[in-house]
């Protein structure tokens, strides 16, 4: 009836595990309590959970990402503190628990922090940047969100019922196979990743079709903002790389659940093929993570240098080059698995080549700043911090690209330092910059800049302290994922690294305070025009927050930096004579139901509760059939309602004719609203 689920699954065997479970349960209960206290169930369910609006879906994705950032950071803090003290002793974390922690840290940060963060920013902003009203497939968009949430749910519930995987975020067999890990941990990991992966593939399809088919009139491909270009290439990567993950994890699941022999030690298994399949996905994945961040940096650097982005064509071509090359380098993740020199050299050379287009981008960003009138708001600080720090990580990457060098450094903390050096200043700073840059657009008021600046300094100082010692340790021979060690010379570095982690914690606290203070002060920082930064692209043409339909009349694009061009031609804020009816997707609970059923399915398969798994699958199938038979999925917003919304917007605009950047010391002027009545 309950498969292999018994009372032993609850973590009463360890105080630390029990407190992890307690925090998870308390966290969930407090969210429920808060919504009840605010009497917000109606709003939460009928305006958000059932929404197909890309802007709301985007916000929910970012909320998931920020929550999981904290969850993944707790893992990091535990690892850093363990390693700081565990010289010649076991520290405070038993090995099995430590292994679960490094596994969940990587899994959460990649799949449930970075992917939702980029999906959220893309969801909210990209359709607005191309002058569209929504993504091409709003229903599928919501399904992607709820599938990602289902995967996150499986990782979270593994803290309460059962254990999580100890096989690392990459889950290599045969260790992750049934023979060495018969318990539920790896199964939780597999199904969380598989379910979220389906969501990501669907998002890739959605974004690609949106960009190719839903652009406003005149928005030629080579007039799109750079963020949209990076989204375009990212979505191609998502579509073509995630199938490899589905195959790798799917076959591993078949091995574990049905006793097959894809990756087993005996009976004809070939575990090296898993490594090959996993990294066929894994390498494009890191470009999926970084390219939207590069897009954010392009937008931020142009806006806060008050200058047109330098080298548009080269940036586009570099993005495309990165996209195609990302499929040709995957073996560099397993140089040491034993391939011959020919194979290793080919992939080593391709890896050094892929560094070149990113270098082109760095120069383009620097040249955008050159002779610009720089404004050092938090998104720009994160961008400059990225430019300095990411290059170091890139250099360590080019070092690792050489197979003989990699033989010495593979699986040491040098590698750990390298990829965090790419992900934190690259991916995370990019998304934090995007979060702060686009927050006013999404919510109608700005984030507090003092706390944003403080968060930046904590993050960058904390990053250097946490990870530079790891480069040194790697060169000194320290392997990654060590629960304890005997070499005294390593400890000072690990203590510095732990201090760095603590400073990052302060950075996260600053982000939290920033949000609280901003909400408290929101009336003073209202974005009345929709264009708080004197922006260049079309998302700044909508109100903040935008109307459900984004644009009442689809814009007619005539140039790169479409909105900047419209402002300078004097057509940015014109009210049309007539409005038209606008069709919008109806809300529906089916995507959330599918996500919930996917969660139940994953949980049931993990615990071998077969009847429940079948029931969940049947439920998903029926939901899809019901939706596929529904021909009335849209409602029409009548023109007079559109008029009401637009009139209110223009009334607000009249109260705030001056551009909000005017008081900023670095502001160079140039908004059409300056001086108008």
């Amino acid at each position, binding site marked *: 009836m309950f498969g292999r689920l018994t009372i032993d699954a609850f973590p009463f065997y360890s105080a630390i595990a029990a407190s992890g479970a307690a925090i998870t349960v308390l966290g969930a209960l407090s969210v429920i309590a808060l919504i009840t206290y605010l009497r917000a169930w109606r709003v939460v369910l009928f305006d958000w959970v059932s929404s197909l609006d890309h802007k709301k879906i985007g916000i929910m994705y970012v909320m998931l990402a920020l929550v999981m950032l904290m969850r993944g950071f707790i893992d990091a803090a535990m690892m850093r503190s363990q390693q700081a003290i565990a010289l010649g002793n076991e520290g405070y974390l038993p090995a099995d628990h430590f292994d679960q922690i490094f596994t969940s840290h990587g899994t959460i940060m990649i799949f449930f922090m970075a992917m939702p963060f980029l999906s959220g920013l893309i969801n909210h902003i990209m359709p607005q940047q191309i002058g569209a009203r929504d993504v091409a497939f709003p229903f599928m968009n919501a399904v992607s969100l709820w599938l990602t949430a289902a995967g996150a749910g499986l990782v979270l519930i593994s803290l309460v019922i059962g254990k999580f995987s100890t096989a690392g975020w990459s889950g290599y067999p045969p260790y992750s196979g049934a023979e060495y890990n018969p318990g539920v941990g790896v199964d939780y990991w597999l199904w969380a990743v598989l379910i979220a992966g389906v969501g990501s593939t669907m998002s890739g399809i959605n974004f690609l079709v949106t960009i190719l088919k839903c652009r406003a009139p005149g928005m030629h491909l080579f007039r799109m903002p750079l963020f949209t270009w990076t989204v375009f290439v990212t979505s191609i990567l998502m579509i073509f790389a995630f199938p490899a993950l589905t195959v790798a994890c799917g076959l591993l699941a078949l091995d574990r659940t049905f006793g097959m022999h894809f990756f087993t030690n005996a009976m004809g298994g070939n575990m*090296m093929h898993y490594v*090959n399949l996993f990294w066929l996905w894994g390498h494009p994945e890191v470009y999926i993570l970084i390219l939207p961040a590069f897009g954010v940096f392009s937008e931020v650097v142009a806006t806060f240098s008050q200058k047109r982005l330098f080298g548009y064509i080269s940036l586009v071509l570099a993005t495309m080059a990165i996209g195609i090359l990302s499929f040709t380098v995957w*073996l560099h993740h397993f140089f040491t698995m*034993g*391939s011959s020199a020919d*194979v290793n050299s080919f992939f080593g050379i391709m890896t050094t080549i892929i560094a070149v287009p990113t270098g082109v981008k760095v120069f383009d960003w620097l040249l955008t700043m050159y002779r610009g009138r720089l404004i050092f708001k938090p998104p720009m600080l994160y961008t400059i911090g990225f430019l300095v720090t990411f290059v170091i990580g890139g250099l360590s990457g080019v070092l690792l690209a050489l197979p003989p060098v990699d033989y010495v450094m593979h699986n040491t903390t040098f590698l750990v330092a390298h990829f965090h050096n790419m992900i934190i200043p690259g991916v995370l700073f990019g998304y934090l910059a995007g979060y702060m840059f686009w927050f006013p657009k999404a919510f109608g008021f700005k984030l507090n800049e003092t706390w944003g600046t403080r968060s930046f300094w904590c993050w960058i100082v904390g990053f250097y302290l946490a990870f530079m010692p790891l480069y040194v340790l790697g060169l000194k021979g320290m392997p990654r994922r060590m629960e304890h060690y005997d070499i005294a010379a390593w400890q000072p570095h690990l203590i510095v690294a732990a201090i760095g982690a603590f400073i990052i914690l302060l950075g996260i606290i600053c982000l939290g305070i920033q949000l609280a203070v901003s909400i408290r002060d929101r009336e003073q920082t209202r974005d009345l025009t929709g264009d708080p930064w004197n922006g260049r692209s079309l998302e700044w043409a909508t109100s903040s927050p935008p109307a459900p339909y984004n644009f009442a009349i689809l814009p007619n694009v005539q140039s790169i930096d479409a909105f900047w061009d419209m402002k300078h031609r004097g057509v940015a804020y014109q009210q049309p004579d007539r409005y038209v009816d606008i069709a919008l997707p109806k809300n529906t609970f089916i995507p959330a139901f599918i996500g919930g059923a996917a969660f139940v399915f994953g949980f049931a398969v993990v615990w071998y509760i077969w009847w429940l798994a079948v029931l969940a699958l049947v439920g998903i199938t029926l939901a899809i059939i019901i939706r596929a038979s529904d021909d009335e999925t849209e409602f029409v917003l009548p023109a007079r309602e559109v008029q009401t919304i637009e009139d209110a917007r223009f009334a607000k605009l009249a109260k705030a004719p001056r551009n909000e950047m005017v008081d900023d010391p670095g502001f160079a002027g140039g908004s059409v609203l300056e001086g108008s009545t």
Partner: protein
Amino acid sequence: MDASGLPVERSARPYLIGLGLALILTAIPFALVAANALPRFTTLVIIAVAAILQILVHFRFFLHIGLRSTPLENLAALAFAAILIAFMVGGTLWIMFDLHHRMMV
């Protein structure tokens, strides 16, 4: 396949031609294997060529993919998928057979 996503093909002819060609391109490799008449390598080459030709027959006569009638983005997606399949499968085979050779795994 045209851009519309709605049915346009009014004649059964392409499907009948496609069926005929596909049957021939299926019968040849099956017959060769049944008869066991040619050396192994030659048979494999003929199987491969017949398969590729039959896939093209399916593209043309069942999916109505044409260089002029099919939208560019559909053709681009197909070409991109084909290139990536070549990299991923080709790369996998190169890597795994190289490893096999070095390790007899």
